[in-house]
């Protein structure tokens, strides 16, 4: 199963990004193979429509869950219809390695 995590940087020490649409990087983590892929977010500085464009990026990777600090209202109904689970984690100090460890428990 693939999980998308919003990240502030492109390594495992970076923190969880608290925004979904305008986060800096996406980490696509595969819980079965432990494979990781960092994707830079082209919508980082977008004026509007960042959320739906970001959903397209992660949905094309067939993720089933997204972990982020916040989801916009446009994204919610979109992800609902795509059957992607949203996980809201309000802990900006958590880094990616800790989150991956939680997933692997």
């Amino acid at each position, binding site marked *: 199963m693939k999980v998308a995590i919003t990240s502030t940087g492109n390594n495992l020490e970076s923190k969880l990004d608290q925004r979904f649409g305008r986060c800096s990087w996406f980490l696509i983590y595969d819980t079965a193979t432990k494979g990781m892929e960092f994707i830079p977010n082209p919508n980082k500085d977008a004026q509007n429509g960042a959320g739906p464009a970001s959903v397209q990026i992660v949905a094309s990777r067939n993720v089933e869950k997204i972990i982020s600090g916040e989801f916009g*209202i446009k994204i919610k109904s979109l992800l609902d219809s795509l059957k992607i689970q*949203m996980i*809201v984690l309000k802990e900006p100090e958590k880094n990616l390695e800790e989150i991956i460890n*939680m997933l692997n428990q």
Partner: protein
Amino acid sequence: MSPRPIRLRRICNPPVISGFRPYGTRSSNGKPQDVFLHIEEYEALRLCDYELMNHHQASVIMNVSRPTLTRIYARARMKIAEAFVLGKQIIIEGGKIYFDSEWFSCKRCGCFFNNPDKQVAVKECPLCRSIVFSNYEEVIYEPEESITLTKNRKYESRNHQHRK
């Protein structure tokens, strides 16, 4: 006295289409007229006639009272009948609504998560696999605003706690 404000109706998913257009109209006098079917009426019709629920079950899902659900449902049928009889086109839009799937909050890692697949019950926290979590129903989605679930916001577990 001002009237009581309308309670927001909860909608599971937006409709896949935005309307219906009649074809083969016998008396063609230009563009067909419109019937505006509200999204809440679409949802009531979906729950009652497609999911085959009774009005009480549907009213719980839409978060309104049973008499209100019946009124919404009656309005939906009236509008659709009007469109059928007079050959009007149906446009699905508007209504006092918010979109929702069920949200849960985990007691161990403090995260919030939703359940996109409504057919399957949630058994564990998707993040830390903890089985101690509760329904989080206080989240109200104001239209045109982003969701903020602040940590300092008090959330109390309701009577129906999910424990295994």
